[in-house]
């Protein structure tokens, strides 16, 4: 480590380098904004990378229509505060077919409303580079992901056909129709992300902090009842619990954890003492073995 530079300083410098490479090498990049803590850090770094200039690409949110209401409010407030060119995409076909996590299960819902929706949005926007906040420490198949990850004209990922990535000499060349997924936070861990949020006092969605919230217990997970679309099964009842979320997604698919951590510092402390990983609360990862890899091949972020 260099004199006076911390581990976080090094990670920040690397991420900014990647963001600038993306802006300089592609015709139409787009920043995927999912409203969560990783996206928050990613967005902050992107603004910093081009300051005092403006963000040279739009920000895209793929909305499944099942996100927590607080997330959507936070998204719109953030876009207004920072003057972002925010684009929101919803898979209208899926919506018309009434696809929902309640009736179709997490796999179909995620596939139609996230993966297919993302492909639609990237194709419609003719985006040749989609910047995402995924980290390699999140999940096993992510551990092998490149920083510049090549996708064919159908947005598919071929784990065996990835380009070797040496030093920081990224090969960002693509043919028309092909594209790149770019992951500037690849080398960050969950802890690094939280420490960065804390040190730079970045605003995050309040759902990360413990509050009294209405939840039902379902299949061993605590699901927050965010609106009246969540039908209660026999024997289920809504109770007030002091909970927070380690990761945010569609509310019926995000498990809360019971917690008293109502400040960022307490969240960090709790995470340091946790015995389970952050994705444990994500119901979509568990629906089949190797499931993240399957989703990625299809074009999921």
């Amino acid at each position, binding site marked *: 480590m260099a004199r006076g530079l911390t*581990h976080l300083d090094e990670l920040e410098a690397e991420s900014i380098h990647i963001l600038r490479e993306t802006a300089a090498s592609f015709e139409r990049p787009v920043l995927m904004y999912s409203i969560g803590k990783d996206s928050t850090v990613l967005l902050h770094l992107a603004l910093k990378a081009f300051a005092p200039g403006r963000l040279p690409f739009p920000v895209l949110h793929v909305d499944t229509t099942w996100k927590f209401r607080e997330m959507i409010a936070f998204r719109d407030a953030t876009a207004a505060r920072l003057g972002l060119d925010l684009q929101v995409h919803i898979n209208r076909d899926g919506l018309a077919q009434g696809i929902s996590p309640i009736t179709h299960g997490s796999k179909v819902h995620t596939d139609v409303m996230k993966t297919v929706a993302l492909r639609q949005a990237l194709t419609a926007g003719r985006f040749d580079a989609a910047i995402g906040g995924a980290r390699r420490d999140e999940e096993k198949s992510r551990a092998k992901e490149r920083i510049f990850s090549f996708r064919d004209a159908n947005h598919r990922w071929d784990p065996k056909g990835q380009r*070797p990535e040496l*030093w920081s000499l990224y090969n960002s060349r693509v043919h028309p129709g092909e594209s790149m997924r770019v992951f500037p936070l690849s080398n960050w861990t969950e802890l690094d992300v939280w420490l960065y949020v804390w040190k730079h006092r970045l605003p995050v969605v309040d759902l990360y902090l413990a509050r009294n919230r209405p939840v039902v217990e379902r299949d061993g997970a605590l699901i927050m009842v965010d609106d009246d679309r969540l039908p209660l099964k026999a024997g289920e009842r809504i109770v007030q619990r002091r909970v927070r979320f380690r990761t945010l997604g569609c509310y019926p698919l995000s498990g809360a954890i019971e917690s008293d951590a109502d400040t960022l510092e307490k969240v960090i402390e709790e995470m340091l003492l946790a015995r389970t990983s952050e994705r444990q609360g994500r119901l979509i990862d568990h629906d089949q073995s190797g499931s993240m890899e399957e989703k990625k091949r299809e074009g999921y972020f």
Partner: protein
Amino acid sequence: MTLPTFTAGEDLRGWIERYERLQLLRVLTCGNVDDGKSTLIGRLLHDTGRIYDDHLKALEADSRVHGTTGGGLDLALVVDGLKAEREQGITIDVAWRYFTTARRAFIIADCPGHEQYTRNMATGASHCQLAISLIDARSGVTTQTRRHATIAAMLGIRHVVAAVNKMDLVDWSETRFREIESEFLAFCSRLGIEHAVALPVSALTGEGVVRRTEVMPWFSGPALLELLERVDLPGPSGADPFRMPVQTVLRPNLDFRGFAGQITSGDVAVGDRVRIMPRGTEARVARLARPDEFGGDLERAQAPESVVICLDREVDCSRGDVIACFGGASDMRVGRRIVADLVWMVDAPLVAGQSLLCRVGTRITPARVVRMIHRLKVDTLAHESAESMVLNDIGRVELECEEPVAFDPYRVSRGTGAIVLIDRLTNATAAAGMIRTGDPTERGAHWDDQALETVSSPVSGVSAAERDARWAQRPCCVLLHGPPNTGKTEAAFALERALWDLGHDAVVLDGQGMRSGLSKDLRFEPGDRSENLRRAAEVARLLMEQGRVVIMSFVAPQDHVRERARALLGPDRCLFVHASDGFEISNIVAQLASRGLIGRRTAP
């Protein structure tokens, strides 16, 4: 993936402070199929208590289906991520692991072993400072082991650790371990790897991985983790030359023009003189700009920070250029020709004449393969002549770029000395390369590089015999060297006077005199002193070719630099005198005479 080392009740801010200051070590692991590499990493994570409960639960379930340990916990499955490789039981791509102990933060690049994926090992090596090479104690050092050490050395990794695994299967035999150790260390020393070490371990039982071994009392060295936590990592040195490849130009309004990039080497401060390479345009750093909401302007910055530089004048500078420090021997090379060591990474072979895209820093330029210089035989490290390279071959080539590029030798600066070659049709990354040198006739070429001899000197019309007859002298050089203020210059001119009086023809080249003109652009760092002496020696060589006795007075503190001068000028024609020996003029004249370099003048 892994758990940090925080305990309940500990002071959080204090812990964070320590965590942030932890040194980061990037480690490469490589080994043959079945050497137990994944098991070793799984063991490291498991025994340091860094696997989350839900991951451990998934691991237990996976072990029953895919495990190779009869339903017991198969630690290799912690790290074998992709479905395809879990089914085949092999690791097929570089996987990145993150973990922290109380002493260090680690990033592990876990690299596949079989030959067809050697390119992935080079990929991992380009990011790492230390390599762990897994060796199966039963099979010992193999071609793959040698290949891994060779690639690690080529990519500039200075610490290589052989983890001699499966010691349980050779009855913890010291004899077997020592055999492997000596063969491995001998090979590393031929590669010039500075720090090589071998450790006996068993990833399966955990012996020697996290804790010191008890079943091998004959081994007194550290456990693997202990070694990783303690290995010395040199920080950046103040002598590293400043380099910043320009990524993009920020022009938010007419009053602001900033060059954005990541510093790959050295440091920079407001007011510094810089050059825009490859053109060499001079400017000064006016600002290291950063808006107030991100902390405000910087006074100075260092590698590996990402910064925005504003210059004090309007200069032509854009993506692909490098902003570099100003000065002498630390100047970047500029040229179209590059000699580089390559690792070839695609199925289609490399052939002379082929055209590719070459990425150096942020510049991408078409380049042609002029010739293959040699291919490396990994087993013996022999250079063999070859017309082409195929997948996973290692070899040296000469490239010609379509436009002049600025670069450094890889060993001087990785960020500006590494290249990637890209196939123009498929866009595949075809090769990784480490620049050795450029064309010797180009500006900035340095005598430390054994550059190609392409220039021959013109021949004078006056013969050596004619000169000898007139001056009664053989061309030779007297170097008076030593610290400043030891009377070198005075002695040089006194010697010139003495030789003049004897009828000879001598010329003085004085270090200070050089600096007032020919070497005006140099500073007093070791590299610059070396360059100053190189220039003087080259001038001396030209003068000696024309029969002169050359008297040089220089500080010349470095032995190896003086030795290069001696080699250039011819050892039998050089007389080096250090200040501590005293500059006794009559003594020096007598020595020249006794060596037959000056004689008695016969005609007036």
